[in-house]
């Protein structure tokens, strides 16, 4: 295939994917009246950058940001550790019941969240965790099926001989996990980290159900407060949306090169 064709495709796709974001950004600096014109006005008459500040200070967004950060950081660390550990257990050992258990792992992805919610609420209420950030953090320390599955698939693409070599070198199972597989999983771990970060950052139902007090709210809950039963504050929603996108985007921009930096591949085969 010719390069120019590829570049053309790449630019076209990129434009397609960026358009919604640009549109949001432009909306954020418009006046409300400009939203409902036809033909649509792409550029605002005046760029009202103060919309960002206005939206941010309408509600205690700095508090929300702190809460979101705590949830995201703690849950991501926990998720990376626990899911990789469990994935390694499933990928590299044979034990009775393993395959059945793994189907259970898969199955646990398939339960609609809305039905689990009330029992979960009761349980967290019993533990005294309602209106704390714990329900949003602690479960991540026990691994999540999606990530376990993802990492297991990755580990299974690492030749078994690497493990055998390490075993012959005297590595026990923990060392095999910690010193061989964890570094090898790096690209997949960055993926998991990104996904978990995004899930926690954008989670709406969890915080809605488990948090009561505004001082505990996360950013998405704050965002949703611009949307009442009758009508919504489009400009503020757009402004906060843009702000909300930036941290994950910046993080992803720096993290993504590790996804490409797979040590595997050409290195293990002759």
């Amino acid at each position, binding site marked *: 295939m010719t390069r120019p064709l*590829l*570049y053309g495709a790449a630019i076209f*796709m*990129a434009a397609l*994917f960026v*358009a*919604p974001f640009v549109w*949001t950004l432009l909306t954020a600096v418009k006046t409300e009246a400009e*939203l409902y014109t036809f*033909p*649509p006005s792409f550029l605002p008459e005046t760029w009202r950058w103060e919309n960002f500040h206005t939206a941010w200070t309408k509600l205690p967004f700095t508090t929300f940001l702190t809460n979101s950060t705590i949830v995201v950081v703690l849950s991501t660390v926990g998720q990376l550790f*626990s899911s990789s550990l*469990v994935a*390694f*257990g499933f990928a590299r*050992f*044979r034990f*009775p019941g*393993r395959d059945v258990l793994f189907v*259970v792992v898969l199955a*646990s*992805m*398939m*339960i*609609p*969240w*809305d039905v*689990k*919610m009330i*029992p979960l609420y009761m*349980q967290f209420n019993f533990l005294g965790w309602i209106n704390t950030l714990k329900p949003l953090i602690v*479960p991540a*320390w*026990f691994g999540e099926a*999606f990530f376990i599955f*993802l990492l297991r*698939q990755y580990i*299974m*693409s*690492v*030749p*078994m001989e690497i493990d055998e070599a390490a075993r012959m070198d005297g590595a026990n*199972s923990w060392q095999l996990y910690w010193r061989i597989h964890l570094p090898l999983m790096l*690209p997949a771990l960055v*993926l998991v980290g990104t*996904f978990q970060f*995004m899930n926690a950052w954008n989670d709406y139902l969890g915080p809605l159900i488990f948090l009561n007090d505004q001082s505990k709210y996360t950013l998405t809950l704050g965002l949703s407060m611009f*949307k009442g039963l009758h009508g919504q504050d489009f400009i503020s*929603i*757009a402004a906060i949306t843009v702000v*909300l*996108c930036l941290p994950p*985007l910046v993080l992803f*921009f720096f993290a*993504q090169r590790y996804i*490409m930096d*797979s040590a*595997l*591949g*050409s290195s293990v085969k002759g």
Partner: protein
Amino acid sequence: MTVTTDTVVATSSRRRRRPVSHMVPWLFISPWIIGFVAFTLGPMLFSLYMSFFDWPIVGERTFIGLDNYVTMTTLDPQFWESLWITVKFALLFVPLNIAVGFLLALLLNAGLKGTGVLRTLFYLPSVISGVALVTIFSWLYSYRFGVLNYLLGFVGIDGPNWLGDPSWALVAIVFASLWGVGSTMLILLAGLQAIPRELYEAARISGVPAWARTLYITLPMLGPMLLFSIITSIISAFQQLTLALLLTEGGPLGSTYFFAMYIYDNAFKYFDMGYAAAMSWIMFGIVLLLSLAVMKSSSAWVHYEGEVRGKKGDKS
């Protein structure tokens, strides 16, 4: 308890100990087991229990046996309509999601300049939270004020009423969900990265054309990640809720009234938790069967480099 079963299976009559202790695998997966029992199994069984009740969110609960299941399959036309809509959606979404994700991953793997930026741009929509994405799409698709039809107008196309026309709304939702193809793309990209370059070089030297290299090297080597993407796509197709709930509210004329949304409505609009739980279990069953079928078929097309040896011995 688990350890005991393990010892029984080690049939060797000899004094010899296995190289790896029986306990070790269980230690590795113990976080998940604890988490599963604590945060999933209980709620799951509880919802199964609920499904045999007339369970309003507040007030009296009555045991009604299988009534919920009987009602939904024999008396409730919406159950079948929603199921059919969801199946249609899955049939459109799963192949497209995989295909687009794969093509984008290939594009990013082609070694173009500025790939880092492209990757970020492709992934951008996945970063935007569902609620915000919905707002954006309602502007894009808007019949009167929408950018999409405005742009289509330039090329002489009179755009359809995307969200207002029952025959277009589902398609519009499929397109909108494809904006979130970023995760599939990344997963497949990570898989592509793990394919040894030598395989391509060898094939190129033997004069295999590019399309054939993709078909005969890339796809088979990508097996594990493709399998993952297919199964998770199926699951997410069946659980599709946000877009239907916020973008079309199930309309027009119920044409995007997904199964998951009907579950949601039963739970939070009609406050009928028993019925919602029963529907969830039906959906759970369907998705589980589909996934198992895909898994089962996968042994024919997925190849694992590091498969644990002695698979046959596993059964004993």
